[in-house]
């Protein structure tokens, strides 16, 4: 699946949200949990935010922590869920 523009947009939106919430600039690859930037409470907020912002449902094993570990990981998750939802034009 090759959707560079869509992925870029997703990444930008997630970066904006995370940076605004932690009041700091956050690189795409930074581990949010290890760096102590993200509490488990905020992690739950992230799940709900991603679902609303991108109209996806994150269920079952997709809710694993690794999918939310960095902006890059979240971008990949959302991209995959959006792609799966649009399989007709893939």
């Amino acid at each position: 699946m090759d959707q560079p523009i869509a992925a870029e947009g997703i990444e930008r939106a997630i970066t904006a949200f995370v940076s605004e919430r932690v009041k700091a600039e956050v690189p795409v690859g930074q581990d949010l949990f290890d760096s102590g930037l993200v509490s488990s409470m905020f992690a739950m907020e992230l799940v709900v935010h991603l679902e609303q912002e991108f109209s996806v449902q994150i269920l079952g094993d997709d809710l694993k922590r690794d999918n939310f570990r960095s902006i890059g990981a979240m971008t990949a998750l959302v991209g995959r869920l959006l792609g799966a939802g649009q399989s007709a034009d893939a």
Partner: protein
Amino acid sequence: MTQGSTVTQQPPIVKCLVWDLDNTLWQGTLLEDGRVTLPGPVRELIAELDSRGILQSVASKNDHDQAWNQLQALGVAEYFVLPRIGWGPKSDAVREIAAELNFALGTIAFVDDQPAERAEVQFHLPEVRCYPAEELSGLAALPEFSPPTVTVDARRRRQMYQAGFQRKAAEEEFTGPSEDFLRSLELVMDIGRATEEQLSRVEELTLRTSQMNATGVHYSLADLRTLLADPRHEVLVTVLTDRFGPHGAVGLQLLEKHPRVWNLKLLATSCRVVSFGAGSVILNWLVDEASRAGVHLVADFRRTERNRMMDIAYRFAGFTDEACDCRAGLPAPAHEDIQRLHLIPEPHAPSPTVKLNAVSLQGG
């Protein structure tokens, strides 16, 4: 107001009594006499209502600092939350107190020696129950001031509210990252086996924690007593404190221990402490204990309309739908729509923001 259908209903229990000061709480008029006295029976009433979990506040027309100093000098200031001492209408004071406590006006009572003040409150806030000062001596015997069961936490309710207000003020002042704020709270968590004294509060938790209840199943006092007596079950209660004071019992875990696997049948935490990460601290501790004991963990989860947070908490802690032989050793769940999430536990470092004192679950 509705009429007729509820004639025989008991009046709702008063959750907060708002006191006038001059010639009601104390004898004398502070601004005129300079000296006032607190009658013994009034002092006893204040302590008695406090022990029943009924909050008390003040609505008084006085100089704020002078009146508050007087309450301190009399040794009763600590009993009052959100005092409103000033020159505005008392109906405004009572309305603000109710709003800050998030209590319905029908659960507020007001006592004042002045008929005009009672009338003013009654006119603007008809749901508030007003009592003349002469009725103070019989107040404690009235049904609306007699809650049916007084739980451990009810007795400390006022302390918890006061701590809550200070905490809120501290959080508003604090602008750093949230983890720093959490660390500044000096949270101390105790996880231990439930005591008989805690059981009523624990039962309440299984009813009231709809957002943070993993199965939505209610356990009655009798159920909990049975489980407490069963050596294979652990009924664990979490108590949280911070530098402002106690949060009381905030979490319940029901665990059934089998030789190869521990089944977490219920995890419920109070919504009040979700933002402190209490749920994940409890879960991480349990995972660590299971890892030391060399057993797998299986957590029961039943989706309700409100408990998505619990699903996410389990998944983030590493629980999955994966198959494992250990599942076969478990008796069928009590509800057919209970899912069982599985984890092979690994050791966990203690939380950086919470000091934990916990019972050991190995052996026994």
